C-alpha cells in the first residue's frame, strides 16, 4: 500500500445526469409539489438508470439550493439521500453558490474524487422559486450600503442585466431579442427531435383543486414566439430599458442531479463515461454587473488547464439574460448565432431554477458530445448573482482525431 503522501490524482468522469422538467414558479405545475420530492425523483431516476451502481458505493450526495429553508433546508443533500432510499451510510450535504450551486456541487465533489477521498458521488441542485423566491428570508448587512460595498442594483438581477447593456452599448435590445428568439427556436427543434426528453424524469405533480398531474416536459418554453412579440414586451427593471421577460430566463422550479466517479471506479463498475472533467474556475466580479462573471471564470479555467478558447468546440452557457451571454460571446469574438453555442437552446426558453441549472448544462453538453465526436473539449459556464462566474471544461470521451 502506498504511503499517504504518495498521492495520485485521479481522473473524474461524468457518468450520467438527469433532471425534472422545469416549471414556471408561482402558479405553475409544481405549485403544490415539494422541492425535496423533486430532487429525490431525480436521484432515484439516476439509480434506476444505473442498476450496475451499488448505492452503498456512493460516497457523497451534494445538493445545492440558493434558498436553504423549508423543503430546501435541513441539509438538503442529506435529507434527499434519506428520502431517496439511499443507504443511511451514504452521507450528504448542502451547498450554495446561488445560481451556480449545482455547478459548484459538481466541482466540489469532483475535487474530492480527484483527491482520492471519494470514489463516487451524486451532485445536483434544486430550486423551487415558487415556494422560495430568491433572497427569501435574507438579511443583507447594512454595511453593504453604508460602506458602498455593493450598490442596491446588485440585489436585483434584472437591474444588473440593464447595467450590462450600459457597459456594452453594442449589445442592443434587438440583439438580445434575436438571441432570445433563437433560444426558443432551438428548444422547439430539440424537443421535436427528441433530444431534450431523454434527460427528463417524469414527476407527479400535486394539485388539490385539479388532482394529480404528471410533469413530462418543460413548462417555460414559448414555441412560436416572434420577434414582434418580443419587441412588444415591457421592460420591468427600467422604463424604456432593454431587459424583458422575453430575453431573460424566468422564475422557475426544477431539480437536477448527476453521477460523478473516479475514472477507474467507473471502469470497475461498468459505468458509462459521458464526459471527462478537464478543469474549472470560479471568479468574482462587481455584483452590479454580475453577468460578466463567466468571462474571468473561463479565463481562470483556461489558466489551470492550459487550454484556450480555440480549443472549445461546444458551449453550454446559462442564459440568465441574453445580454450576459452576448457579452461573453463578444468577448471571445464568437457570433451571436454560432452553432457551437447552446445547440439545444438555453435557459431563456427552458427556464433557470437557480441552483439546478449548472447540471442541466452538463447533461446537455454530454448529449452533444455523443453527437459530435469531432469535438474534443466543451465548456459549461454561467453567471452568478452577487457578482461571480463559474466555468467547467469537459473532454469528449467519444472524440477521435480521425474526425
Amino acid at each position: 500500500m502506498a504511503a499517504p503522501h504518495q498521492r495520485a490524482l485521479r481522473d473524474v468522469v461524468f457518468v450520467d445526469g438527469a433532471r425534472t422538467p422545469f416549471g414556471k414558479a408561482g402558479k405553475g405545475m409544481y405549485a403544490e409539489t415539494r422541492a425535496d420530492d423533486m430532487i429525490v425523483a431525480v436521484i432515484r431516476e439516476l439509480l434506476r438508470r444505473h442498476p450496475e451502481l451499488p448505492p452503498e458505493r456512493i460516497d457523497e450526495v451534494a445538493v445545492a439550493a440558493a434558498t436553504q429553508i423549508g423543503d430546501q433546508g435541513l441539509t438538503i443533500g442529506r435529507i434527499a439521500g434519506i428520502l431517496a432510499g439511499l443507504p443511511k451510510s451514504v452521507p450528504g450535504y448542502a451547498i450554495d453558490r446561488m445560481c451556480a450551486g449545482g455547478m459548484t456541487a459538481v466541482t466540489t465533489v469532483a475535487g474530492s474524487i480527484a483527491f482520492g477521498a471519494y470514489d463516487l458521488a451524486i451532485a445536483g441542485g434544486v430550486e423551487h422559486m415558487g415556494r422560495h423566491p430568491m433572497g427569501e428570508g435574507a438579511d443583507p448587512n447594512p454595511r453593504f450600503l453604508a460602506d458602498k460595498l455593493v450598490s442596491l442594483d446588485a440585489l436585483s438581477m434584472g437591474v444588473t442585466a440593464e447595467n450590462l447593456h450600459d457597459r456594452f452599448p453594442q449589445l442592443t435590445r434587438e440583439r438580445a431579442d434575436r438571441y432570445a428568439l433563437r433560444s426558443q427556436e432551438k428548444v422547439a427543434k430539440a424537443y421535436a427531435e427528441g433530444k431534450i426528453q431523454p434527460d427528463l424524469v417524469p414527476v407527479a405533480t400535486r394539485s388539490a383543486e385539479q388532482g394529480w398531474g404528471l410533469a413530462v416536459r418543460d413548462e417555460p418554453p414559448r414555441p412560436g414566439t416572434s420577434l414582434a412579440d418580443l419587441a412588444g414586451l415591457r421592460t420591468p427593471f427600467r422604463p424604456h430599458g432593454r431587459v424583458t421577460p422575453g430575453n431573460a430566463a424566468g422564475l422557475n422550479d426544477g431539480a437536477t442531479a448527476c453521477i460523478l466517479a473516479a475514472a477507474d471506479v467507473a471502469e470497475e463498475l461498468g459505468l458509462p463515461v459521458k464526459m471527462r472533467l478537464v478543469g474549472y474556475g470560479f471568479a468574482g466580479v462587481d455584483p452590479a454587473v454580475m453577468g460578466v462573471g463567466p468571462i474571468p471564470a473561463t479565463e481562470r479555467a483556461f489558466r489551470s488547464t492550459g487550454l484556450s478558447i480555440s480549443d472549445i468546440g461546444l458551449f453550454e452557457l446559462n442564459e440568465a439574460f441574453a445580454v450576459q451571454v452576448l457579452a461573453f460571446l463578444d468577448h471571445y469574438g464568437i457570433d451571436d448565432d454560432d452553432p457551437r453555442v447552446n445547440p439545444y437552446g438555453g435557459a431563456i426558453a427552458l427556464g433557470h431554477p437557480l441552483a439546478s441549472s449548472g447540471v442541466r448544462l452538463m447533461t446537455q453538453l454530454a448529449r452533444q458530445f455523443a453527437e459530435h465526436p469531432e469535438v474534443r473539449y466543451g465548456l459549461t459556464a454561467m453567471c452568478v448573482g452577487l457578482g461571480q462566474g463559474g466555468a467547467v471544461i469537459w473532454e469528449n470521451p467519444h472524440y477521435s482525431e480521425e474526425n
Partner: protein
Amino acid sequence: MSAPDFADEVVTRALVRYLEVPGVQGEFALITLDNGHDHTRPSTFGPAGLASLNAALDEIEAHAPKVSAVGVTGKPFIFAVGADISGVSLITQREQALQIARTGHATFARLRDLDVPSFAFVNGAVMGGGLELALHCDYRTLSSSAAAIAFPECFLGLVPGWGGTQLLPNLIGAAAAIRVIIENPLNQNKMLKPKQACELGIFDALLDSADFLAESLRWAAEVMAGRASVQRPGVDRGPAWDEAVAAGRAAVEARLHGAAPAPVRALELIEQAKSVDFATGTAAEDEALADLIMSDQLRAGLYSFDLVNKRAKRPAGAPDKALARRVTKVGIVGAGLMASQLALLFARRLEVPVVLTDVDQARLDKGVGYVHHELDQQLAKGRLSPDQNNRLKALVSGSLTKDAFADADFVIEAVFEELSVKKAVFAELEEYLSAEAVLATNTSSLSITEIAADLKHPERVVGFHFFNPVAVLPLLEIVRGERTDEATLATAFATARTLKKSAVLVKDAPAFVVNRLLTRFLGEVTAAVDEGTPIEVADRALNPLGLPMSPFVLLALVGPAVALHVAETMHKAFPDRYCVSDNLRRLVAAGKPGIYSWDGGSQHIDPEVAALFEHGDRPSTEDEVRLRALSALAEEIGLMLDGGVVAEAADIDLCMLLGAGWGFHLGGITPYLDREGVSEKVIGRRFSAPGVASVPA
C-alpha cells in the same frame, strides 16, 4: 324511492386530468379521489361522492379524442377507505339501503366495463369500497407505505358488497379471500401489510412510496405496451373452493354461533362467486347489503365502532387535560406477575424510570428479571432495537426499601387484594412521597374511598384498574374516590392515554363495571348449575350472543379462586343479587383450575369436577338460563346507571367491548338487551332510544 342524501357528507370529489404519459399514445385520464381534507380525514364514498365519480366517468367517456387508459389514485397517503358509514343512521327503509348498494355497483362497474385499460394506483390507505373500486380496475399498483389495506365490513356487520365478495375470490382464490374478508376482520380487524397484499395477489406491483405515482404511470405504460408481465395467482375452482367455504363456515359458527349474520352472508356470497356470473353475484350482494344495513347487528356495530373510536378517546367526565401533572418516574409496589407486567407496560409506554419494591430480594430479582426477559423477547422479534432494549432495561429497577420512590410522581400498588394491606402500603408510602404524587391502586373490587380514608392526602388516591392480560386488553377503569381531586384524576387519564389504554371514568362502587357484570352473569349461570341444570346446558345457554368464550371457559381464565373472592366481596355488598356458589367453593377447595379439562386437545368436563359438583333438582333449559343471565345483567346495569357508576349506558358498553371483548354485534351489551326486549321487561325501559344502536322504528 331513492337513497337519502347524507346531509353532512364530506364529499370525495373525483378530479379528472388528461395526462401525457411517456410511452402511451394518446391521453391518459387520471382520476384523483380527494375529499379536500388532509390524511386525518380519509376519503369515503357517500351518495354525492359516488355521483362525483359518475360525473368524472361521464366526462372521460365524452372526452375527445378518446382516452387511451383510465387511472384512479387518491390524495396524499389515502386512496379511499370505503362507504361513508356516518350516513347509515339516515337509512330507515330497506329500499333506500338497496338503492345505495346498487348505486355503488353501477358506478364501480363502469370502470370494469371501460373499453380501454383501467388502473388503480393505490397510493395509501385502502379499505372496503376503496378496495372494491380498485378491484374493478384491470390492473393495480400499491405503494410500499400504504397504511391500511382491509375489508373491515364483517368487523362492523356488513359484507364487502360493492363487488368485493365476487371479485376478490375470483382474483386470489376462495381461501385467501376468506382470510381477507372474514378471518382478519373477526381477528380484531387485522389489516394487511403492503407486502402481504401483493403476495396474496390483490395487487400487481408494489412500488416505492418515494415516486409512487410517477412510477405507477411508467408501469402502466409498460403494461399497455406489453412489456411488463402481470402475474396473477392461479385460482383453484375445484373442491378447494368449497372446502375453503366449509372451513370458513365451521370457524364462524364455532366463534359466533350465528350471533352475527354478516360473516355468514359473506361466506354465502363467496360460495356463489365460484359459479355465478358477475351480474348475478352483485345482485346477490345488493340483497345482502340491504338486509345487513337494515339489521340491528350492523347498527350496533356502528355504535360500537363510534364508542371505541370516539368516546374512548374523549372519556366522559374526564377533567381538563391541563390539570394533569407530569409523570417522570413511576413506582410499583409489589414484584409479582401483575406488578411485573405493569412495570413492563409503564417502561415501554412512558419511557421513564420504573421502580419495583418488594420485601423479598428474590421476588424483586424475579420481577425485574421478568421485565428484562420480555424486553429481550421483543428484541429477538425485531420489535426493539438493541439501543431501545438497553434504554428500557436500564429504566426498570428493584428496591427493597420504599425510599426509592421519593421522587416518583405516580405510584401504583398491585399487592394482595385486602383492604388493610393496601391501606398500610399507602400509609407507609406517604412517608417518602411528595404531597402531589399520585397513589394509584389496581384493586379490582375494594373501595377507593376506604383505601384513602386515613391518609394525610386522600385526594391523591385513584383507582387504576387494568384487565388481564395487561398488554392485550385495552380497557382501564379509572375510579374516582369520594375525595379524589381533579389534578389526580387528570393525571390518571393522561397516564392512561400515554399507556395507550382506553380509560372510562367509574364511580367508587363495588367491582366497578366489568367485574361487577361478569360476576353477576357468571353467578347466574353457576346458580343454574347448582340448581340442577347440566353444566353443558348452562354453559351453552349464552351461545346465541357469540361471546368470545363461554361462561365456564371464562371462569378458568379468571381462575376459580379469584372468581370466588370477587363473588364473596360482591355478595357482601349486594347479598340479594350476588350469591356464592357452593360448587364454586368445592372447585376452589379441590384446587381445580376450572370445570373443563383440555387433555387430549378437546374440551370436556373434568370427571373429578363432575364428581365434586352437587346438583339440585330444579334444572333449567338453555333459554331459561339465558333469559335469567340477561335479565340479571339488565337489572344490574339499571342499578349502576341509577347509582351513577358511569355517566351513560354507552360507558357500560365501552367497558364490555374493551374489557371483556364482547362483540360489536351486541353493541357491548345494552343494545342487545334492548333488541331482545330484556331491558323493557326487567327495568321497564330501553337503555337507548330506537335508532341509536338499532334500526330506527
